[in-house]
């Protein structure tokens, strides 16, 4: 039933990799979104899943631009997409200032809204939109690794309509 194994040329989709390296500037976010959306569409995700992936990646890259590189546009962001049979993984790497992801608590949205605090929503969104998210922070190399499964993990019935041959 699942036909994602076949790429556009009838080739296996397993272990396909797409990579974008781009200057750390907010005016490149649009290009990054476009890149990720196109690859996601290509492998069979529908609009709904594509817009979730697009937003999660935007949030991660906006954080790199603002926090990791603090708007130093001489730095680069690496966006790598890895596709295998089950899932679509995006790895965003920077070589800037790291942070301790354990210290970033999921905000309590009620409390958050009551305080009308500005910012602090990005990581919450990323966690909510993607199926898996992992922060790998090392000296001089920080990564956010986010995945979306081809069969929707969150819905009870396996949502095969998310998958189509391309």
């Amino acid at each position, binding site marked *: 039933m699942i036909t994602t194994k076949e790429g556009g040329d009838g080739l296996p989709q397993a272990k396909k990799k797409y990579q974008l390296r781009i200057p750390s500037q907010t005016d490149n*976010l649009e290009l990054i*979104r476009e890149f990720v959306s196109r690859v996601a569409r290509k492998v069979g995700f529908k609009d709904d899943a594509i817009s979730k992936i697009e*937003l999660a990646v935007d949030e991660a890259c*906006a954080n790199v631009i603002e926090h990791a590189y603090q708007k130093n546009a001489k730095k680069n962001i690496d966006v790598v997409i890895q596709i295998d049979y089950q899932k679509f993984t995006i790895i965003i790497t920077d070589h800037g200032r790291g942070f301790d992801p354990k210290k970033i608590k999921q905000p309590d*949205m009620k409390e958050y*809204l009551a305080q*009308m605090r500005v910012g602090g929503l990005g990581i919450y969104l990323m966690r909510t939109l993607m199926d898996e998210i992992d922060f790998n922070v090392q000296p001089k190399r920080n990564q956010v690794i986010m995945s979306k499964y081809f069969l929707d993990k969150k819905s009870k019935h396996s949502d095969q309509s998310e998958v189509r041959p391309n």
Partner: protein
Amino acid sequence: MTGFEVLRAENGDITLLRLKGYLDAHTAPDLETALQRLIDEKRVKIVVSFKELTYISSAGLGVFMGFIEEVRGNGGDIKLTNMNQKIFRVFDLLGFPTLFEIRDDESHAVGSFAQPKSR
């Protein structure tokens, strides 16, 4: 040409801001500028139309969060209208509907300002 535009129209003491294009970390400062200008002009009854907005990220939502207290403190409000599903979902995920008035239609939002309301 940054891919984002704010068009402004006035109707008595109510201001309508129509957003066009995408509102992300790159373009959010443009919206900030537009809202700051309204506050400086003491025009605090604000209706924002999302009809032609194609995309929003948390940087865009943050702008509304950043102004709502001040606007309400001055007897005004920021009412949000005409969001498509995709954009509404982002607001909804973050619980904004409990904090902001989100209406389907511009004219209703304008109308709801018109009712005299004691400060």
